[in-house]
């Protein structure tokens, strides 16, 4: 490896600065809405619309806004709902997708190619397409306004099957054969030998799944009418309509509270997440 020399030659310095300028602009685009949300959450109500673009609040109103958000809206309830829905969806998704992906990646059976083509095809279908039939079925069985109604369309994740299949394919066949000689059955091979090596991919998918369903507004809005079952975004919507009116400070304080768990989860799983995305889990 070449040692870094100081000072950098002018050309390299320029390129370095240029690359970082581009990255900084990108980061600013991503982070500004969040920053603004935070700043609004700690401002006094009169300052929010009149304060212009001045980022520094003149008076701090954080305590008032956050306590108002906690008192006026059942934020905790929304977040518990979010946890129930996200974990329910994720657990079933993993239980279904992991064996399916293993079969597609490592077992030989007639129709495997066709099934995998169906999985790829499934990737192209957005939730809006089957929304109506699923809604009708749920209504028929009287299952609307329930946790189940919010979770059921997502139990089968073709994306998870696809992602895990790609990961499992890289798993050495010899190890599977060794496990068969050692007497393990296929399910035990999968859960005891293959899955522990695929943890980065599973972590990455889990983040995708949790973020998507924690933030999902579309489907809960269709099947949920009662606030008791509302996940965070739908809860915020109810809350914005009914209680706060134009009180953006309180609204943003609420938004900050419900976004926080996601940020924490991501920070905890960040390394695994990146590993899983780059598929360097196992050799």
């Amino acid at each position, binding site marked *: 490896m070449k040692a870094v020399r100081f000072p950098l030659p002018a050309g390299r310095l320029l390129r370095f600065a240029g690359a970082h300028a581009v990255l900084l602009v990108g980061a600013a685009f991503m982070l500004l809405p969040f920053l603004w949300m935070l700043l609004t959450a700690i401002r006094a109500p009169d300052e929010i619309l009149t304060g212009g673009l001045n980022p520094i609040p003149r008076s701090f109103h954080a305590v008032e806004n956050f306590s108002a958000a906690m008192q006026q809206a059942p934020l905790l309830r929304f977040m518990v709902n979010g946890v129930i829905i996200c974990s329910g969806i994720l657990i079933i998704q993993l239980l279904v997708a992991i064996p399916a992906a293993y079969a597609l990646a490592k077992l030989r059976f007639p129709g495997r190619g066709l099934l995998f083509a169906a999985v790829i095809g499934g990737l192209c279908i957005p939730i809006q397409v089957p929304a109506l039939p699923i809604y009708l079925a749920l209504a028929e069985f009287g299952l609307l306004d329930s946790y189940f109604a919010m979770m059921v369309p997502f139990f089968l994740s073709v994306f998870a099957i696809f992602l895990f299949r790609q990961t499992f394919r890289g798993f050495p066949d*010899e190890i599977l054969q*060794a*496990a*068969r*000689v050692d*007497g393990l059955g296929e399910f035990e091979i999968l859960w005891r030998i293959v899955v522990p090596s695929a943890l980065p991919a599973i972590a990455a998918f889990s983040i995708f799944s949790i973020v998507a369903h924690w933030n999902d507004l579309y489907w809960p809005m269709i099947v949920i009418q009662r606030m008791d079952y509302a996940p965070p975004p739908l809860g915020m919507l109810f809350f914005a309509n009914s209680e706060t009116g134009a009180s953006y400070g309180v609204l943003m304080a609420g938004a900050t509270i419900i976004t926080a768990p996601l940020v924490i989860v991501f920070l905890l799983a960040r390394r695994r997440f990146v590993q899983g995305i780059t598929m360097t889990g196992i050799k």
Partner: protein
Amino acid sequence: MEHSLELERISKAFGKTGVLSDIDLAVEPGEFLSLVGPSGCGKSTLLRIISGLERQDSGQVRIAGRPVDVLSPRARNIAMVFQNYALYPHMSAAENIALPLMVDRLSLLERLPLIRHLSPRRKRIEAAISGEIGKVAEALQIEPLLARKPGQLSGGQRQRVALARAMVRQPSLFLMDEPLSNLDAQLRVHMRDELTDLHRRLGATFIYVTHDQIEAMTMSTRIAMLDGGRLAQIGSPADLYERPASLTVARFIGSPAINILPARLDPQGHVMLGALPTGLVASEGLAGPVSLGLRPEHIRLHAACERAMPMATLRRSEHHGADRLLHLDLTENRQTGLIVRVPQDETGQFQPGETYGIGFAPEKAHLFGPSGLRMATRTLPARIGAAA
């Protein structure tokens, strides 16, 4: 005593490509049998069929006299060692070695996470297992490595752990699929030694797949050579070296490779090199082209030749320690190179660029017909063109 392993008319095809056809093989208890052959000859497939990982299309596999065709790999009481070691990556060496015993002795329920702690006999069984791991680890000198994960072990250490995992079940049959091919040259020679030693100590039957004829020659009690999905020859290393059944076997066994010279049968059955008789007579066969095989150590070079001999020019001379390998080109047929092995102290007389006469004892020569199969020969009492 019944055979440790018997194969009867084993055939296998993948789709339309035939991989194995009509393999018959019987292995005595305690044998070290090597399956050799060029890559793609079907030797690994045959091993997988013996192990039960692959099913044959027809034929029968018997282990210790018992047909095992419908049995799973586990029920066959075999152990297998793989080319890439195939250790479970997230388990320590000790857990790797313990796994086959755990599967044998604990029920599925007793192996499940959480629930397993409810089993009263689990502790006792696990204690017995760790005792056995200790013994195997001692035999293979891997005790200090037991707590490590495969990623923290070197190639040779991984191979020992893989061997320990195979040994711990005390199987009747050890199947090894090129277990040394991923090791560096020095370690390979060392592990060759250790494996032979292990085979002697255990007294178990080893079936050993390799594409490296030196491994097969040095370790085996018998070698079975496969070629194009058929059994080309089976016998002791000496059999295969001294009486190869076909051109393919002759070419595969021996390093440097045997010299193959184009020759001709005259109507009387005399083997002719160009216009010169060799003193070798085919017992049967029609007049026409044949191949004459000569091991490098069986050729003598003659500086001054009084008699009519095939001539060759010395191109290069290689130092190989005790021996020297001389590379020559035949004068009559420049495409045919020739390698001659000469003891180091006799090499001084040979100079590159010089031309020498080729001589050999006809009884050391191998004759192969147009189909590549060995032909029976006898030698004429009066040798023509041969070395005195």
